[in-house]
């Protein structure tokens, strides 16, 4: 059981901030999804969490304590890029990991490798990208770690094996362990994660429980009889995060109180008032690229 607290984390590479003032609390015993476009700072955040990169400022604490060597025994990490040694066989990697970590379970590792259909005698050099990912997954999940930090743990895997990795994550969470993972496959995050945080340009732009974000964030759309309508200050409501107006149609992104705002649109004279649900992909796009999001949500609605 471990709560991870990231406070005002900054990491510069030269003059460029990869992480630019990032604070986050990751609760224990849950699956936490870290989302963000390429270059948002996810991998750098992970590296700082694991002591693989030194923060320029800010800090990371595990249950209130800074990262000490003993903490590594409790954390398993799958890096974004393969860290397997080309000239070593899969079996040798298992043996190397066993020597490094007391709680490592070799039998479990071989079981997992078999599930992924990996031949333990093969050298890493001969493995495809997906197979390398599978080997790293097997090594990490055989660690009996309390915290699993997984940077794109399904990269290169086929859908069956992707689902397998998700099941492993769910299993760990059910045992009370904590999983923090990043993925560009939003569908996976949507399924497996309880909490999410969205990073963009090194900063936190959104966080919350996936189910709460979905329950609260809606698009309220109203169609007015003619172009000369007024919104009676509805857009000044703090719950209206964004308003897009085109001729007779107005679309509001609301962060709460969708029904109430829909009713206000009606009283302002809108006729076709609809409340549209948003899935995590829509919510993500609104957080990092609002202009793309509106067209997307509406196109999806009209096509169904």
């Amino acid at each position: 059981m471990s709560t991870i607290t990231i406070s005002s984390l900054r990491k510069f590479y030269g003059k460029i901030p990869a992480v630019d003032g990032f604070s986050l609390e990751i609760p224990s015993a849950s699956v936490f999804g870290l989302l963000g476009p390429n270059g948002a700072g996810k991998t750098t955040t992970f590296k700082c969490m694991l002591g693989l990169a030194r923060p320029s400022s800010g800090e990371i604490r595990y249950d209130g304590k800074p990262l000490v060597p003993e903490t590594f025994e409790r954390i398993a990490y799958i890096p974004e890029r393969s860290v397997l040694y080309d000239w070593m066989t899969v079996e040798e990697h298992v043996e190397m990991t066993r020597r490094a970590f007391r709680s490592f379970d070799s039998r479990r590792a071989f079981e997992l490798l078999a599930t992924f259909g990996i031949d333990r005698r093969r050298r890493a050099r001969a493995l495809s990208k997906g197979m390398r990912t599978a080997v790293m997954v097997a090594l990490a999940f055989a660690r009996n770690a309390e915290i699993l930090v997984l940077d794109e743990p399904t990269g290169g895997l086929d859908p069956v094996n992707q689902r397998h990795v998700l099941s492993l994550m769910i299993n760990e969470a059910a045992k009370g362990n904590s999983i923090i993972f990043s993925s560009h496959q939003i569908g996976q995050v949507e399924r497996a994660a309880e909490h999410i945080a969205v990073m963009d340009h090194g900063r936190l732009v959104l966080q919350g429980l996936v189910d709460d974000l979905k329950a609260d964030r809606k698009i309220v759309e109203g169609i007015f009889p003619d172009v000369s309508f007024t919104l009676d200050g509805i857009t000044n409501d703090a719950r209206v995060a964004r308003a897009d107006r085109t001729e007779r149609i107005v679309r509001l992104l609301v962060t709460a109180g969708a029904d109430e705002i829909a009713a206000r649109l009606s009283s302002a004279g809108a006729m076709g008032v609809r409340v549209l649900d948003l899935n995590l992909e829509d919510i993500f796009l609104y957080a990092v690229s609002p202009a793309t999001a509106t067209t997307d949500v509406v196109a999806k609605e009209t096509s169904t």
Partner: protein
Amino acid sequence: MPAVLTVDPRSGVPIYLQIIEQIKRSVALGVLQAGEQLPTVKQLAIDLTVNPNTVARAYRELEREQVIETSPGRGSFVRSNGVTESPKVAAEIGRDALDVALREAKSVGLARDEVRELFDAALLRWFPTFEK
């Protein structure tokens, strides 16, 4: 229990609400009977490949609404009044669906009388035994 339980994580409806809705529906339809045991939170999470805390949240809400009860160490069960109240649950499901349909009808600008006409026609289609 329910192989019938499925979730669509890609939907805009929160997963815990999807689970609640489906369990209520199963109770209303008698698929789940009084005293019947539900899968454990862990088992259902694994079966659906969703977060255990999400399943736990659904179960907590169902307990609060007295549809199920959980006894520590034994598991979660459908409450007997969960079943006696099943007509009420069925009515709730119907009312919610009608609400959605009526809101939609209103939003496209149909008048009350037009809606009533459509409603009567639909009623005849789905409940033909009540023909005049």
